């Protein structure tokens, strides 16, 4: 069965340090992969997506993600964490087809940036 997994429920990072939020996938073929962020009491916001091409994808708010086929991973990264990055982060892939029919999300990772 196809899936994405976010192995960490919570990640704590000191402000100014680099951050990584992990996602691994089990998706057949060439995967389309997405990262979304949810701030408290808000809907989800799109950060970035991998379709094909460059393994390093740049997105909103200074985030980037590295697609690694050999490790079946799509980790979200940022070189220097800000307090405003504290939020809930979701990795996602298309529920079917190319993604127009909806997404399936991982369980989410709480990112907490400590002063």
């Amino acid at each position, binding site marked *: 069965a196809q899936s994405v997994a976010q192995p960490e429920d919570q990640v704590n990072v000191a402000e100014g340090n680099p951050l990584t939020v992990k996602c691994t996938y089990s998706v057949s073929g060439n995967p389309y992969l997405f990262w979304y962020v949810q701030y408290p009491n808000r809907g989800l916001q799109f950060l970035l997506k991998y379709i094909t091409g460059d393994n390093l994808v740049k997105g909103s708010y200074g985030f980037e993600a590295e697609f690694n086929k050999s490790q079946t991973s799509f980790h979200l990264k940022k070189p220097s964490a800000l307090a405003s990055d504290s939020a809930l982060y979701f990795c996602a892939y298309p*529920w079917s087809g190319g993604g127009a*029919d*909806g997404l*399936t999300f991982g369980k989410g990772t709480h990112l907490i940036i400590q002063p």
Partner: protein
Amino acid sequence: DAGITQSPRHKVTETGTPVTLRCHQTENHRYMYWYRQDPGHGLRLIHYSYGVKDTDKGEVSDGYSVSRSKTEDFLLTLESATSSQTSVYFCAISEPPNEQFFGPGTRLTVL
């Protein structure tokens, strides 16, 4: 939130009553989606629509129905609400191949 509104934003109802949630968009996007968010499950797709009167089931469609009579409105109906349908419901829109934009959510409590 990209021209998407959801109503009501909060609702408390009793088991067995019908409930309808509304999603309204001003972006003229072709695709609309309903998701539910529960702790430990992320978001799960309930139903989606790819045009007026064109809808299909998602991952967790049992107990839910949808209708789309106009491009801008997508309704989610719980015919007879159960406590297991207590959740936060999110509507999303997209114009493929672009990303989905999410509404602010509706918190539904079924007592």
